[in-house]
């Protein structure tokens, strides 16, 4: 093969790593982390402003920082990292060369230019329109243009990914079906194409409107289509971070999915149903019928939620089975107690699974229930929910896999291993606090995207209950913890990548990244069905009971508000 010279063989996994793929993974991951740092800083400023005792920014800068925070972390950090995940899951896991590396670089350049353009627009101060940029509020034209250019870049990157899959198949670089992690990445990429198409359908007219070519945009039409991008892009994150969960469990513990069929079907449920979630944002809007809302908001009968609930069982199930296979068979939880809790890749992944499920998943279903949305819409409950999914879920999962990417792809030793050990816990605790306390404040009615919860300058007066102020203070403290965890992450990653010791053979022997039970040896063992998994059964039962209780508690809350019809 002509490109044979452009590969190296990974001494730790035996995988052939395409040179182009490797550099592109590095470039996308590094830029992702830069945007995480910038966006995280804006997030801290937002949280400190919303902490009434601190209230650090003036109103205009607060709304500016909040817009920048949303764009930088929710779009740029996550999507740059996801592109790295896509290249990893295609070229690296399939032993293939990357399709069209020049196009991949072009995609990278477009994404970078678009992201910078949008940031400039926001920092100039004329585009503090929030991440959602609901019309008829208008931003500067280059705000929309930046997002469009970024999206086109991301779309090209998705097609490089699909092209790589085709090449790998044609050149027979793997046997049989693609790995589950790659399958999850395919799911993410398919949803990404849908998402970006929705984005184009709404952002291009919005751009034309902002320069005066189109006279009027309907605000409800905008919301329906915009959320076809806005919510679906969160489903890219779900697919990608679930794939990352499986990848970490496989690399660190040699975990196999309980059954390929179930896990893959769960991913297919995402593709089929997640797009309906645009409805989550229109549950209290005029002009939309209840039957449309009920069907769409529940992804038809909660079929995408079913997908997540399946992964929520099969990821811990796979870990438990792998651990039991290694002989940790005592009691229900010996396998969990004796898991590698000091390995940040593992601990970050587990915290991500737990918090995504318990905090993000349950709150998302409750929030997305047609009538329950009445007592939550646009309160801080909403950011509480999505910080549990996107920060505690996606971001923590991506941080976790970075602890594997640095040694395997950058081939550098992790610097400050003592700090790395604690980083996921600190960041996870902070993210949990942010989510939990914002949900608490939201339950008490506190508005999101609001500079002054004391209403000091308003003509009329109103005071939220004192507990809401307490919640916002605790939210600020949690944001400080998360920031500390984030800074530690960036210090570790930047330090390792740019100043770390190269990972030579001695280092690989001394400190293997691929767990002792991982690698090819494990795949010789028998089917997972031979094990009983009492630990996972208990965990799933606890989850289910919490879910049911919390769901009906909120119906109780709803039944106490003024009757409406």
């Amino acid at each position, binding site marked *: 093969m002509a490109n044979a010279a452009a590969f190296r063989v990974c001494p730790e996994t035996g995988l052939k790593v395409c040179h182009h793929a490797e550099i592109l993974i590095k470039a996308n991951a590094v830029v992702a982390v830069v945007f995480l740092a910038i966006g995280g800083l804006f997030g801290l400023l937002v949280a400190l402003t919303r902490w009434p005792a601190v209230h650090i920014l003036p109103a205009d800068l607060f709304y500016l920082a909040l817009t920048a925070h949303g764009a930088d972390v929710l779009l740029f950090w996550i999507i740059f990292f996801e592109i790295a995940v896509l290249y990893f899951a295609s070229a690296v896991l399939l032993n293939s060369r990357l399709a069209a590396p020049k196009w991949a670089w072009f995609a990278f350049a477009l994404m970078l230019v678009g992201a910078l353009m949008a940031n400039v627009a926001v920092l100039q101060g004329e585009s503090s329109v929030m991440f959602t940029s609901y019309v008829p509020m208008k931003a500067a034209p280059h705000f929309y243009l930046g997002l469009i250019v970024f999206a086109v870049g991301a779309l090209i990157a998705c097609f490089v990914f699909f092209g790589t899959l085709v090449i790998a198949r044609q050149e027979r670089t793997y046997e049989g079906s*693609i790995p589950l992690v790659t399958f999850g990445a395919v799911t993410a990429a398919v949803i990404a194409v849908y998402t970006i198409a929705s984005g184009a359908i709404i952002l291009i007219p919005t751009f034309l409107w902002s320069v005066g070519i189109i006279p009027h945009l309907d605000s409800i039409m905008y919301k329906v289509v915009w959320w076809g991008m806005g919510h679906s892009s969160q489903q890219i994150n779900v697919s990608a971070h679930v794939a990352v969960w499986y990848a970490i469990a496989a690399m660190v513990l040699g975990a196999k999915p309980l059954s390929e*069929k*179930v896990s893959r079907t769960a991913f297919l449920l995402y593709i089929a149903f997640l797009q309906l979630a645009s409805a989550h944002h229109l549950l209290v809007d005029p002009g939309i019928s209840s039957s449309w809302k009920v069907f769409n908001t529940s992804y038809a009968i909660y079929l995408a939620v079913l997908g997540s609930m399946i992964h929520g069982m099969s990821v811990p199930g796979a870990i438990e089975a792998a651990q039991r296979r290694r002989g940790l068979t005592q009691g229900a939880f010996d396998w969990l107690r004796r898991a590698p809790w000091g390995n940040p890749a593992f601990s970050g992944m587990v915290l991500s699974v737990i918090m995504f499920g318990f905090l993000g998943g349950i709150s998302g279903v409750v929030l997305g229930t047609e009538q329950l949305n009445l007592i939550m819409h646009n309160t801080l409950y909403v950011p509480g929910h999505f910080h549990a999914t996107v920060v505690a879920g996606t971001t923590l999962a991506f941080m976790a896999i970075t602890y594997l990417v640095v040694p395997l792809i950058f081939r550098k030793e992790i610097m400050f291993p003592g700090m790395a050990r604690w980083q996921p816990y600190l960041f996870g605790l902070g993210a949990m606090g942010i989510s939990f306390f914002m949900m608490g404040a939201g339950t008490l009615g506190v508005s999101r995207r609001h500079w002054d919860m004391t209403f000091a300058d308003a003509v*009329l007066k109103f005071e939220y209950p004192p507990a809401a102020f307490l919640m916002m203070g605790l939210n600020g403290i949690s944001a400080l913890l998360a920031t500390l965890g984030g800074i530690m992450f960036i210090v570790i990653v930047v330090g390792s990548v740019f100043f770390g010791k190269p990972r030579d053979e001695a280092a690989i022997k001394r400190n293997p990244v691929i767990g002792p039970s991982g690698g090819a040896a494990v795949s010789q063992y028998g089917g997972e069905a031979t094990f009983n998994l009492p630990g996972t059964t208990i965990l799933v039962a606890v989850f*289910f009971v919490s879910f049911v209780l919390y769901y009906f508690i909120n119906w109780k809350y709803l039944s106490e508000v*003024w*009757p*409406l019809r």
Partner: protein
Amino acid sequence: MAITPPENRLWWNEPLHRMEIVWITIAFLWGVVMFLTMVYWHIAGQQNLSNEAYRVKPDAFAAKAEAMVARYKVREEGDSKIPVVRPPAGGDAYLIARLWEWWPILELEKGQSYRLHLSSMDWLHGFSLQPTNINIQVHPNYEMVLTVTPTQSGEFAVVCNEFCGIGHHNMLGRIYVVDRK
């Protein structure tokens, strides 16, 4: 492993783990329960958002609100003389959302039903009734009509909870609920 192709090339013929079958069944049924709960609440519940809405021009909506104010104003409040309006029980109550106020102040009777009309004059706004905690999105060019029955008396705030520019945090309205005389 999840990062390698399935060892069994016919993976789709592998039997399922018993726990998987049980959990999938439970999770699916729970989805059905949650779906039916929303439907059930439409039949038996008291809190359902109206499907009644009309296209309306901001000027036309403002004219209706002003007509109501002219007819049912009971007093004015504050330095800016915001009218306090007491629409008849069972009647129409209009509330305008605009940068950056809710206009006028409504005075409702506890236990009576009102047809509350909401629309925006400019951008999107969020009707957030506190401390009751009812939250409704308000769009320009759409008039939403909901029938609401206050069950507590007292002073209620209407917070704007959709970001609407630099004065957003000062956009605070009021609804009084008084006991029947």
